[in-house]
């Protein structure tokens, strides 16, 4: 089963490799990983999408918590978070397919951010399933390049991660 975990870390030298080493050293999977600074000075937030049964997830949680640079691990497996991903999609667009791309972009409330006579570059945002869906529709038209950020997630409700 897929799980989305948020990890609040010290914005220190080497913290990313500590997390990566932990996953590879213990045979845990990383489906996607995104990391950037937070609104709090000195802290970064990682969003990791991983897979495993309950026992594996419990170990991932505990092992992450054991890292000295990790302040907090939030497990969003219970759907208590809003999850979004951004994708930049370069798709072939010539003759007939130009309008078809535009139609799909419109349906998914995506945007065209770069245009050439032979292609469109699309910016799409949404939960990962929505990104998968737009990619499926654009694929037959000729995908040239796809860049995805990986999921980011934030807990629902009024409270922040530290209250």
């Amino acid at each position, binding site marked *: 089963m897929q799980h989305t975990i948020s990890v609040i*870390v*010290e914005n220190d*030298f*080497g913290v990313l*490799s*500590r997390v990566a080493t932990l996953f590879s050293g213990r045979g845990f999977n990383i489906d996607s990983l995104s990391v950037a600074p937070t609104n709090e000075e000195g802290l970064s937030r990682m969003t990791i999408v991983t897979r495993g049964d309950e026992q594996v997830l419990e*170990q991932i949680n*505990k092992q992450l*918590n054991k890292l*000295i640079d990790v302040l907090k691990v939030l497990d969003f497996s219970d759907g208590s978070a809003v999850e979004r991903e951004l994708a930049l999609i370069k798709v072939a667009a010539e003759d007939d397919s130009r309008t078809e791309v535009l139609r799909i972009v419109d349906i998914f409330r995506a945007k065209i951010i770069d245009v050439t006579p032979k292609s469109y570059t699309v910016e799409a945002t949404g939960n990962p399933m929505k990104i998968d869906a737009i990619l499926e529709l654009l694929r037959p038209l000729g995908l040239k390049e796809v860049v995805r950020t990986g999921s980011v997630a934030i807990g629902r409700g009024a409270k922040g991660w530290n209250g």
Partner: protein
Amino acid sequence: MKMNGARIMLECLKKEGVDTVFGYPGGTVINLYDALFDFKDIQHILPRHEQAGTHAADGYARATGRVGVAIATSGPGATNTVTGIATAYMDSIPMVIITGQVPTALIGNDAFQEVDIIGITRPCTKHSFLIRDVKDIAITMKKAFYLARSGRPGPVLVDFPKDIQIAQGEFHYPETVEIRGYKPNLSGHPRQVEKAVTMILESRRPVIYVGGGAVLGGAAEPLTQLARKLSIPVTTTLMGLGSFPESDGLSLGMLGMHGAYCANMAMTGSDLIIAIGARFDDRVTGKLSTFAPHAKIIHIDVDPTSIKKNVRVDLPIVGDVKDVLMKMIKQTDKSKDKLAGYISALAPWHSDIDGWKEKHPIAYKQSSTIIKPQFVIQKLRELSDDDAIISTDVGQHQMWTAQFFQFNKPRTLLTSGGLGTMGYGLPAAMGAQAAFPNRQVITICGDGGVQMNIQEMATLVQNKLPVKIVILNNNFLGMVRQWQELFFDKRYSSTCMELPIDYRKLADAYGAKGFLATKPGEVESVIKQGFKENGPVIMEFKIAREEKVLPMVPAGASLNEMVLNA
């Protein structure tokens, strides 16, 4: 007062109460060594190899309970410490390793003797630091020592570039330290403790299973009290030996692959296992699916990741084992009225255990012509001091020591349990002897492992460290040979150490004394002569070449499927 970074580092060590460091100089620590030249508060011991220096710091830490400190230069000096660091990491030994690093401006340039030692050691350190400013030395060292010794202890590496050692700065050592991502949970939850005692009082076939955490956590005293109060039998892992006196009637000895028959049968028959600072290692559990099939499990450990990692747990208690055990004793005292009834209800269990003890005690067949290794171990126990510190290497001699020496006090056995590092014994003994110049320190080795760090004979002689080196010589890499005999049709591939070595001459070459016993009748006199010497000594025993360590649970078999005679 301004001073250079090298001097600041030494002042930090002094503040942490460090009296001995094990280190090897080189280009990127030459400034540190220059500062050490007239720094009289710290004894520096120069090993002959950085790996040995790291093991010595580890041995020092295991014997004293304090943080061991090792120093190495950058590049190959640093990489030579890796085995020592990994050994300490697997057994949760508090250590700080200071490695020199090329000047900060050169980091990443593939400079001479540059290596990314933080990257290399990331999976085998509790944490690591690269000091990038002379202002950060003091706070970094404060954190390093705090991390090394608190919670589940472990090695912490500090990479110390040469230009930071030269830079001038002020020295202020912080009184306290705050690491916001590190808050080990030391106090056991009272509700969990209450539940644990209730579960114990409901059990009829309980076993206390103790690991190295009880030794590290200084919990031998409350453990012994609790076990005796409740009359619960105690088995220990290799790392737990010494935490409960093996002379006590409640002791089952060691469990696991080469554990006692009674211990493994007790685990298999138990209805409640109380695991204390142990981690259900594969050498202990045997086949997981048939491990302790009837038992509920209470697991007490300071490290939550140890709990439910390998086996299901019915009641986890995260906390310092000493704290939890003391709370359990108090809680037990509240149920005093139930105690007598409980203990008498355990009578059938005790009689089962006595039956197992009697049926297959840890034993061997004595010989009048050839020296049995087990006999040497028994004689060593008989003739050594009560508080003697024993270190071992890894393999058959290690298991014979665990089975036959009988450990009654914590921190008297130094052995590489988790990593299983050959070459550990001699340098670890060296570290322990440096900490306790007046105690008897004995290292028990095989002829394989002893040669992996034999160069430390020089360090022993030079520093007047009177370690007694016992070599059980079978001219084999015995444990691998045993597996080859049992599971590979006696195809002894590369396990015969064909060249006989004259260890008496070797001892002589280093300026130490060497003794040799080839017959059982000579064992006692060699040990007595060796113990009488004031300096380091090699005592070599030519032992039965194909003697096996038994009983044995074959890899992948269930704990109760022991090979008793083969």
